[in-house]
Structures are given as C-alpha cells and as structure tokens.
C-alpha cells in the first residue's frame, strides 16, 4: 500500500549543506568572472557602482598608513629617549590641557641639588645625567662676524654623552674636570660647525656664546631633522658654567639610564619615591614633577591617533554603507536582467540556496574587486604622501580593507540574491531577455 513511506523513502537532497564544496568553488570562480565581465562591459556603470567601496577602502588604508608612518616616525624621533632612558623634568610631557594647567601651578623645577641627591641615592642605575636649556631672546652664537640666532644652548653633565642623542664626531665632550671647574668650554652641534668652520678645524677655536667667549673642545655627529626642525643646532657647555653665567637656578631634565627595560620601571618608581620624599609631597597628592618615558609620549600620541582614527571609521562607514546600497541596487537590476537565466538554472535543478549563493558570491566578488582597486589606489597615494610626509602601509590595513569591502558586498547582496532565489521558474523562463 502506498503511504507516507513512499515519500519518506525519498532521499533527502543535499539539504543541510549549502552546496557541495565543488559547487561553491565553481560558483565562486564563475561569479568572479561574471563580475569582471560585467565590470568590463559597462565601465561607467561599474565605476559608479564601486565608487563608494573604493573611496571607503582607500580612505581607510591611507589614514591607517599615515598614522602608521607617524607612529614609526614619532617612535624613532620623538619618543626615542635612548635605550632604557627616562627623563625626570618639571613637567610631564604630552599630557592633557587640564593636567597641564594644574601642573603649571604645582610643579617645581628639578634643581641641581635634587639631581645630586638622586645621583647619590638611586640604586644600581647604568647612568644618570642632567641638562638644562636656557631660553632667551638672545640665544646667539658668533664667530668672526658671523652670527647664528636661536641656537639651542644647554648646560650638560659629562655623563650626558653616554645617555643623550649626541655622539662625538671629533674632539671630546665635557669632562668631570670641566664640570667641577666651571670651564668655559663648549661642544658644538653640526649646524654650527658647518656655519662657522666650513673648511677649518673648529677644535681650540673661540666662539662667543651670548657674547661670552667659549673654547670649542669637540663637535657632534650629524643627527638630522624632526618634523623639519634641525636637531643639530645646539651648543652644550658644562651645567655648572651655565649656572654661573646664564642661569643661576636652572631647571633640569634629569636623564636616568637603566640596564634593561624591567629595571627602568623599577628605577622610575624609585625616583618618584625619592623625589616625593625629598619634596615632602603628601601621599594623597600628585607628583610635583614629571617622569617621562617613551610609553607616556606614545600613549598620548595614541590618544590623538585614536581620535583621528575614530573619525576616519565614521567616514569609512558612511562610504561603505552608501557603496553597499549602490551595489545592492545594481544587483537588483542584474537579477532582473538575468531572470531568464535564473529560470534556466532552476529548470536544471538549482535550488533556492544555489541561486542565493551564486548571487551573494557575485556581489561579494564585485565589492572585493572594489576593495582591491581601493588598495591599489591607497598604495599609490601612500607612496606620494610618503614622499612629502610619512606613510607606511601596514598589511593589517590592506586585509581590513579587503575584508570589509567583501563583507559589505555580501551583506548588501543578500536581498537581491534572496529575490532571485524566490523567482518562479516557469515565469522566469517565459521572461525574454
């Protein structure tokens, strides 16, 4: 007797699986070529279709590249205090505006006595030194009628040659003897050597620093520029000499160098404890000084880039959504154009999910190609920007861009694909192209 068992013995079609793996691979390949062909056939339409996705991807990658380039630049040029070096100063650098206002009222400069105190009491550091800059309208250097203005004049301890950026090119640095004798000696940055002594050996010569004669004992290797500012426009004299002639109570930046990164953290804590104790800062109150390490600078920098990035994400999201909607509309038109073809496929045994998969893959491919174009554009733009500024394309940005575009294509392709899959095969076959 016929019964439900007749239909029950009906073998389940490959129900649960979307399509066999063979099917998805072939469909993807097919979909890719269909998408490429569609793009080639209607170039203007394609350009407009992909514009949103291309702009979004390009923006994303270019911004990420610029930020990446700046991160590297900042890490190299600004946050680079030296290996395992932190700097104790009156101010904490790169802090928020409000924090800075508060600090203005509370923080006191680091004095020479405090430097000596730290030097005595800090444990097991590799090196400790101090420098003080003098700020004045009159930071001039003169030699034989040639005057340089706005030179960076600083007083340094002898140990600064080991800790700081400057390296001896010729001659020698400030010695302990210079320091204790308040000697009138100076160590020059490359810019001054190039300006005053282009063809002559500067060693032993006398130059006028703020009108006062100093003997040149050595000069530094060229450092370079940061954000266009030359780092070689300096004169360094013994700190004690600076105190004697230019700045009776100088504000110091104390540089402490640790043996390794871990010890650096330990030393930072120690310095804070020692200084707070010496200055009698109550437990509940903030430091009246700043301990600055690369991380603090990078952290603040990351806050800035974080804000920039957040805005970028907003822009990218808008373009992606717009681009996605455009793709959706194009796919709807495509489905209408290909109704007959869908009918053929269904008559040959394509199930709803087969048609759905096909069109979803097509729209994903389309968007992915848009993402690819965006990547290429971004690479070109990044190269150009790098020429003038700085920009390095990180792989993560490229992958993010491609992934995002494909996802947009997939998501916005679902509705048209769903419509396609629901077409009645008989009606569809009747439709003429």
């Amino acid at each position, binding site marked *: 007797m016929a019964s439900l068992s*007749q239909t029950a013995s009906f073998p389940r*079609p490959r129900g649960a699986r979307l399509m066999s793996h063979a099917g998805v691979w072939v469909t993807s390949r097919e979909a890719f070529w269909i998408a490429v062909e569609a793009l080639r056939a209607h170039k203007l339409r394609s350009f407009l279709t992909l514009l949103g996705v291309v702009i979004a991807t390009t923006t994303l990658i270019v911004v990420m590249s610029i930020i990446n380039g700046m991160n590297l630049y900042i890490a190299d040029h600004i946050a680079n205090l030296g290996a395992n070096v932190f700097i104790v100063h009156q101010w904490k650098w790169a802090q928020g505006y409000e924090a800075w206002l508060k600090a203005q009222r509370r923080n006191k400069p680091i004095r020479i006595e405090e430097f000596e105190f730290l030097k005595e009491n800090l444990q097991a550091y590799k090196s400790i030194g101090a420098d003080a800059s003098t700020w004045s309208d009159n930071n001039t250097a003169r030699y034989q009628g040639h005057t340089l203005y706005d030179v960076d004049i600083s007083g340094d301890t002898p140990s600064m040659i080991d800790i700081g950026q400057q390296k001896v090119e010729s001659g020698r640095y400030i010695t302990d003897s210079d320091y204790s004798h308040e000697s009138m000696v100076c160590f020059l940055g490359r810019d001054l050597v190039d300006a005053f002594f282009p063809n002559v050996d500067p060693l032993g010569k006398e130059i006028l620093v703020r009108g006062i004669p100093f003997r040149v004992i050595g000069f530094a290797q060229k450092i370079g520029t940061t954000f266009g500012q030359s780092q070689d426009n300096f004169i360094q004299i013994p700190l004690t000499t600076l105190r004697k002639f230019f700045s009776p109570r100088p504000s110091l930046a104390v540089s402490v160098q640790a043996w390794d990164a871990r010890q650096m953290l330990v030393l930072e804590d120690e310095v804070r404890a020692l200084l707070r104790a010496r200055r009698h800062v109550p437990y509940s109150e903030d430091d009246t000084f700043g301990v600055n390490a690369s991380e603090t600078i990078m952290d603040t920098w990351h806050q800035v880039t974080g804000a920039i990035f957040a805005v970028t994400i907003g822009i990218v999201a808008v373009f992606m959504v717009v681009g996605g909607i455009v793709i959706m509309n194009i796919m709807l038109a495509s489905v209408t154009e290909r109704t*007959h073809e869908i009918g*053929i496929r*269904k008559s040959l*045994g*394509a199930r709803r999910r087969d048609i759905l998969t096909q069109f979803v893959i097509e729209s994903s491919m389309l968007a992915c190609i848009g993402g690819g174009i965006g990547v290429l554009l971004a690479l070109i733009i990044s190269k150009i920007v790098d020429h003038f500024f700085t920009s390095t394309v990180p792989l993560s940005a490229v992958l993010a861009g491609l992934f995002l575009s494909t996802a947009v294509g997939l998501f916005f392709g679902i509705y048209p694909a769903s419509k396609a899959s629901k077409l009645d*095969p008989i009606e569809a076959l009747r439709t003429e192209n």
Partner: protein
Amino acid sequence: MATPVASSAMRETPPPRDGVIIKTEDLWKTYDMGAAIQVHALSGVSFEIERGEYVAIMGPSGSGKSTLMNLIGCLDTPTRGIYWLNARLVSELSDDELAYIRNKEIGFVFQTFNLLSRASALHNVELPLIYSGMPATERLEKAEDALRKVDLTDRMHHKPNELSGGQRQRVAVARALVNNPSIILADEPTGNLDSATGEEIMALFERLHQSGNTIVLVTHEHDIAAHAHRIIHVRDGRIERDERVE
C-alpha cells in the same frame, strides 16, 4: 480509464506497476483569477507512460499541453491529483525537492534552447552536474560523453553565439542527457529551426529512443508529433485521444 481518486485518499493509492515511468491520476491545475472565478488549465488528466516509450503530447495553443508539460517536468505542482515519476510520488513536493527531481530525473529541451549565453557548450552541459554536486573531473568526463552522443565534441569550447541553431539544440540535448534522466522532455524542440535542421534533431531523438531513452515530446505540429510512437491529444485541459502510431 483510471477511476478518479479523491485527494484525501491520495495516500492510499498504489504505486504504479513495474516499468511505468510516469503515471498521472486525475491531474487538475486551477488558477484563481479573483472574484471567485477559477480557470482550469487541466481538468482531470490521467495517463501512463512506460519506460522506453516515445510519446508526443499534442494540442492547439490553450489546450493545456504547456501546463501539462510543466507538471510532468516538475516545474509546477498540480492543484489536485497524483503524479508518480519513476516510482516516486512527486505531486506534493517542496521547492527544493522538486529541484532535486528536475536535476536527476528530467532532461529538458526547450524551443528557444535556453543555454547560458556567456558559457561554453561544455560548461552548459556541465551545469546539471554542478547542481548535483559532482566533482570536476567526473563532471567534465560525463559532459564530454554527452556531447559525443550528439556529435558535438569539436565545438565543446564554443559559446552559443558561435553555434548554429541546430548545434545549439544539440548542446541542449546533451545537457538534457548528461545526468541520465528518466525522461527527456522536449517542448517544441524544432520550433526555432528550419525544416532541414529540424529533421536532424528529430533524427537525433530517434537515435536516443533507440538507445533506450524515454522521450516525451510536446508540440502543436502534427508533422513533428508523427515522429513519436504514440500521440496523446490534449484539448481544453483534457485528454481527447490516445493513439499509437508507428
């Protein structure tokens, strides 16, 4: 000749006897045109077709032969009635199940060929196998075999617009054969061909019939229907006459 069976008793109908590939009992197809008006495209059609037969379904336009073809080809389900195909009760299947049946049991040949214009002949023939989930090497082998049966291997990689009408229809026939269907269902296969090419195609069908395929031809032309060995005449949604011809 079969007694009409009410649909509520459907589950108790016996399956067709061995060798009967198509059996329909009291097929109705009704369309609601709104305001309680119903149009009956088919009004109680019952017949049997045995494996290996060559049958033509003939009738003027409006006779319901296209509707009947859509039902036989599982493109649609009847409003009422029973349809056994290859010992499976297919009259009440879901869309997905119908798709499966179309893929495995039916080989369509259309008047307008219905090939994918952007794909090669080989890929067109491959298509049903892709939807079956067959892996690539097997697929290509079978597709080439099918094209060999219709003498078109030298044109495998051509696109439809590079083929003549007769060649396109032969590709369609190869596609219809490729998954070893129970029946080949041809809807006015020579309608878009000149008479000489049309004869070639009818000769091809004759060859396929000799090889053991079951062929169902739907047409309004008597000359074409005469190639079959049996003609079912359809008029006004009913079977008018069922004659054997040789």
